[in-house]
């Protein structure tokens, strides 16, 4: 409900719209898309989100999307999500082998295919907290408060190390282009006959 909360305002902008038969152009496709990259740039491979956000900000395929970076998912992001028609979360995970890029969908009910995010994201989760919430919890919050039900995807890469350090491991660094391409594919293929053009699961072993 854009504009119903002037204090928060519209974060992602654009009209949620409905899928169309014809594939829209890049800017049109990206309208209403919110990409939230998150992680700690001083924790080894947890910096993936930060690096990806920098690359996406300069990527013409994401022209009409809003790309933001955060240390972690926090409840206030629900206010950004409320106006988005598509949300893509980018993080590392501790389940896949280092550098393996995966795609998972968070459904409208707030649950996630492929297991609980709490068990797999880099920060883990022991229930909603002020410091971070899991993707499903964040979506549940946006749904409870604003009735938001955007399509939500999590693009992640397996981490090799989350220890203190300002360098990505070689495996995760090599995965950066694939993560960026996965995000761009989700945004640009939206609205086509195969709206997201990607199958859930591993994208690049």
């Amino acid at each position: 409900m854009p504009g119903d909360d002037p204090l928060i305002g519209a974060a992602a902008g654009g009209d949620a719209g409905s899928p169309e038969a014809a594939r829209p152009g890049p800017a049109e496709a990206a309208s209403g898309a919110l990409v939230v990259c998150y992680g700690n740039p001083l924790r080894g491979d947890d910096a993936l989100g930060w690096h990806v956000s920098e690359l996406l900000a300069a990527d013409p395929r994401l022209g009409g999307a809003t790309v933001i970076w955060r240390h972690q998912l926090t409840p206030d992001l629900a206010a950004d999500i409320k106006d988005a028609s598509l949300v893509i979360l980018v993080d590392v995970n501790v389940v896949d082998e280092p550098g393996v890029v995966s795609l998972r969908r968070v459904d409208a009910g707030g649950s996630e295919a492929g297991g609980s995010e709490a068990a797999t994201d880099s920060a883990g989760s022991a229930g909603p907290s002020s410091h971070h919430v899991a993707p499903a919890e964040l979506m549940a919050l946006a749904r409870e408060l604003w009735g938001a039900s955007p399509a939500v995807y999590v693009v992640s890469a397996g981490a090799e190390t989350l220890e203190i350090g300002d360098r990505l491991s070689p495996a995760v660094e090599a995965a950066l282009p694939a993560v960026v391409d996965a995000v761009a594919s989700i945004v640009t293929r939206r609205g086509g006959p195969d709206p997201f053009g990607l199958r859930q699961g591993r994208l690049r072993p």
Partner: protein
Amino acid sequence: MSREIVIDPVTRIEGHSKITIQLDDRGEVVDAHFHVTQFRGFERITQGRPVHEMPAIMARICGICPVSHLIASAKAVDDILAVEPPPTGKDLRRVINLGQIVQSNALSFFHLSAPDLLFGFDADPAKRNVIAMARENPALAKDGIALRKWGQQIIEWIGGKRIHPTGIVPGGMAEPLTAEVRDRILGGVPDAIAAVERAIAWYKTDMMRWEEEAATFGNFRTAFMGLVDRHGNVDHYDGWLRVIDADGKFLADKVDPHNFNDYIGEAVEPWSYLKSTYWKAMGYPDGIYRVGPLARVNIADRMGTPRADEELEKFRWRVGRVAGSSFHYHYARLIDTLHSIEKIEEILRGPDILSKHVRSRAEVNRLEGIGVSEAPRGTLMHHYKVDENGIVQWANLVIATGHNNMAMNRAVLQVARHHIKGDRLEEPMLNRVEAVIRCYDPCLSCSTHALGEMALRIQLLGPDGTVLSDLAR
């Protein structure tokens, strides 16, 4: 036979603490300690660094209140440079500091404490979280999210980033304010005021439910300390230190913050890395005092802004001229937030707020500097010594949570005495021990910054180490 209850950890990530509660052979509580078991060491790791780097380094102490450390640190470096920031530079520092207070107070009240207040301390911990709160009272949850977001946006827009902003520098601010940013912030003021006033109205309506907690959550006689301006109003950035006793009598007033060491001592206990500060005239451990929102509303003559002053009058009508219960930190925090929003508007409407002159420059002119300001949780002091080349030789930080350390320990003891009877450990007791710590919102742990399912374990141990009772979640 004495026994001991251990709550370990009371924390999740960057904060590490535990609580021990000592029982005698009749099962009565005889003592309690709130242990901070992590060591940060910023005082040591900054030795050898150029003093100009101090604000940026010190901001890394905390991801919740980096602005507070930036402000106190920048003021300490100003002191070493013997430089006065231009008036507009000071005003912008005030605004960003108040933005920090708004977002941190919103976090504390709406995200951390409101679920306890909404569902009750006996409710299932799995229910006491922000999502359940959104379901039960969406308006309250939205207001909390909106207020925090607005405060963070102020930090981001003026400081450059919402976490660890870079805009506050020795001598003032890195960049002047633009009309566009000023207007964007001002555009959010009416809704921010409405949001906090709705929360105050809700809290006042509901607070009668918590009479027992108000009577037992750190309800005792102590002194209170904070900064006031020359009119006796709350001052979050500058001013004089004022200390009152439990009856409101001045123990000290118009104290130049540079002289805080003459009045405040620091003690170290073997069971905690968190220092305990005390009022020197009363000695240790009798010189107990509190800082933070409750102290600010207690020490000040007025808040200094119309709406907050009106609420302060009502606060004092309800709980007395000097509120003694730490439970009232919640109420005071909302008034503090309201005042901060009003003050942001007042400053931003000033005629010189868009002045380009926001920074003064100088080299090292003194070998020692002190910076004092009000952080969300209370008075924050940075004290540095440098050599003639401006290389840091020594640093000491006196943080709000240290000022409140003795009071927090005493509050845990009071709650434990009220709720622990015999050998049985029950969830409501655990909930309340956590909740009394949350009143102070100590900035050391995720335990007090966490909702819902906390990584808590409480054990009742016999003298031989046998676990007599075990409660975990």
